[in-house]
């Protein structure tokens, strides 16, 4: 009988981890549907530094001071309070109670800081909720953000509120812990409200809060895959693999280099690979890094908020582009789950999700790339889709066709003769 809670706990834990691993595998499979990445993964030290600075150190977040500081609090709180998870899991599996409490003062110091962080997180999350729902910051609202993205953003905040409250309540109703008077900095203030209950009911309370807390955490863990909150994991690989070259550099397509070399007589036909299609019309034409980008997107809207096209009322929104990719890759993933392999569903990223109008509005200004707190590059996706429109679909706006034929015929985007290149000095 004694062992029943331990067995239940271990079973729940294993099932949650199992689900989580299954989703991670699905994630990896979907990301690997993408093509190879042109930028070599060289200069690892620089990449590690980027990851430590941008993802771990949150360096980009403080470009917006208020949101930045609040986010750092929630993030630190999340990491620090989760140390307590080690104790909770050991207690759960082996039926112990506060196994680390024998560490004495140090234990008090740890739990004390967790409790303080829990309160700070609660405050920050409440401010986030106010910003999102009462002040209604423009950045959180656009067509794409209606429905699940909005609910998702709120759910995450509710999760945090519930988990932090349960953590404090669990400590407050733990009579043994309160009597130790070691680390109960916050819960010690809540405890007096419970003193009228008997020791037995307090114990029931404590157990209930304890179970709800850990089950809540396990649910949250499995919620990640379906949420923008996935960024708490993917921000790390994303900042590691993110480009370390000058932002102005747009990759040279190797497949095109081959063709051009043939045309210029520098190489022969045999070297080119068959069935290359130029540019991207669907998720499978994008690189794995671009797909990883899409899964990592926090939907924060910093990109869209600084996009000159979006600011002046054009349809283009770099955030929407990233969210569309994730929606589409999920759709493709589901088809594969159902059929074992991909079956054409007559849908494409271009057309069914992203319109040509959006793509042609981009000025390639790199503001979105600069602003993204986790090194996502919406511009590279836009460029790859333009490449498809021009090179596979020949559907450029007419004026651009004029510009291009000018370059082709007289080496300038305007119809001036190349022989007249020195006339500026007349």
């Amino acid at each position, binding site marked *: 009988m004694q062992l029943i809670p331990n067995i239940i706990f271990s079973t729940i834990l294993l099932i949650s981890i199992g689900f989580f691993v299954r989703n991670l595998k699905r994630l990896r499979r979907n990301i690997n549907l993408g093509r190879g990445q042109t930028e070599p993964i060289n200069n690892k030290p620089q990449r590690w530094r980027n990851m430590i600075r941008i993802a771990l150190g949150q360096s980009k977040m403080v470009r917006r001071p208020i949101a930045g500081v609040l986010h750092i609090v929630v993030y630190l709180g999340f990491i620090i309070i989760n140390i307590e998870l080690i104790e909770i899991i050991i207690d759960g599996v082996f039926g112990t109670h506060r196994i680390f409490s024998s560490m004495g003062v140090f234990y008090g110091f740890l739990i004390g800081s967790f409790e303080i962080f829990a309160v700070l997180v609660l405050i920050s999350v409440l401010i986030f909720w106010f910003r999102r729902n009462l002040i209604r910051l423009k950045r959180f609202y656009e067509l794409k953000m209606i429905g699940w993205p909005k609910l998702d953003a709120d759910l995450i905040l509710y999760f945090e509120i519930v988990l932090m409250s349960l953590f404090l309540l669990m400590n407050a109703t733990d009579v043994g812990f309160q009597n130790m008077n070691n680390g109960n900095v916050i819960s010690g203030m809540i405890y007096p409200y419970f003193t009228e209950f008997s020791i037995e009911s307090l114990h029931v309370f404590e157990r209930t809060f304890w179970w709800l807390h850990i089950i809540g955490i396990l649910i949250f863990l499995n919620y990640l895959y379906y949420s923008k909150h996935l960024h708490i994991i993917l921000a790390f690989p994303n900042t590691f693999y993110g480009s370390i070259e*000058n932002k102005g*550099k747009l990759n040279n397509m190797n497949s095109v280099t081959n063709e051009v070399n043939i045309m210029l007589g520098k190489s022969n036909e045999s070297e080119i690979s068959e069935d290359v299609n130029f540019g991207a019309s669907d998720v499978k034409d994008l690189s794995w890094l671009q797909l990883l980008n899409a899964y990592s997107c926090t939907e924060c809207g910093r990109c869209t908020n600084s996009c000159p096209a979006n600011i002046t009322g054009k349809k283009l929104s770099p955030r929407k582009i990233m969210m569309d990719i994730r929606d589409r890759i999920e759709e493709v993933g589901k088809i594969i789950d159902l059929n074992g392999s991909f079956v054409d569903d007559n849908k494409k990223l271009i057309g069914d999700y992203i319109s040509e109008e959006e793509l042609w509005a981009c000025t390639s200004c790199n503001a979105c790339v600069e602003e993204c707190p986790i090194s996502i590059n919406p511009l590279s996706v836009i460029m790859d889709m333009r490449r498809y429109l021009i*090179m596979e679909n020949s559907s450029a706006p007419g004026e651009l066709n004029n510009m291009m034929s000018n*370059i082709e015929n007289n*080496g300038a985007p305007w119809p001036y003769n190349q022989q007249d290149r020195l006339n500026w000095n007349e």
Partner: protein
Amino acid sequence: MSKLKIKTVEDFQKEGKSAEILFWVGCAGSFDDRAKRITKAFVKILNSANISFGVLGKDESCTGDPAKRAGNEFLFQMQAMSNIEVLNSYEIKTIVTTCPHCFNTIKNEYPELGGVYEVYHHTQFINKLLEEGRFSIDGGTFRGKKITYHDPCFLGRANKVYNAPRNLIKKIDAELSELKRCKSKALCCGAGGAQMFKESEKGEKEINIERANEIKDNPAKIVATGCPFCNTMLTDGTKSFEDNDTVEVFDVAELIVKAKDL
């Protein structure tokens, strides 16, 4: 206006000499009336510093940037490869250009295709001349005047060149009055990504108007920039002010020429 002293790299080759730098003029600098004035201003600076420079003249062709950003990688690489062939045949080592788009393309995208050069934006090159003591700027007509600066995307965010142009504005003793959105947060003028060559998509307003309004809110009556396309966009944008609120748009090189009365 009298003709400026210029030589093509071909002229140098015929004399059995080589120039210190190649001045890559660019399409706008060669053909656009407003941008030609920037080209001339920079040549005056080069001449006053006694720099031996050559231009490609009729051997110069579009770098391919607008084609690449429109999505035509094919046309871009055709342009790139034939330009690289020309540049390498003249054994060019150092290139200076007044256009951030040419600068970005030659610096970042040509090396993989076989074109490896030391590439400078003219504001960087003028700073280099100052450092080496080959050119000097001390104050002049703009002393104490407020000047603001618009960061071209392809110079600023794309290549992190923020200080070179600002340093030159300080050298002419003007008071730099920054725009609200500046440096890495600067707002685009609206021309990049081949937008220069087409009408913009449907929206509430034009990007250059949005930027011009921001410039209008700045106390400076002169806006400096370092890109012929930004120059055109901002000139058009600021012209739209109804109240004859005159803001003048100049390239940093033009300001130096005026300051020094070259």
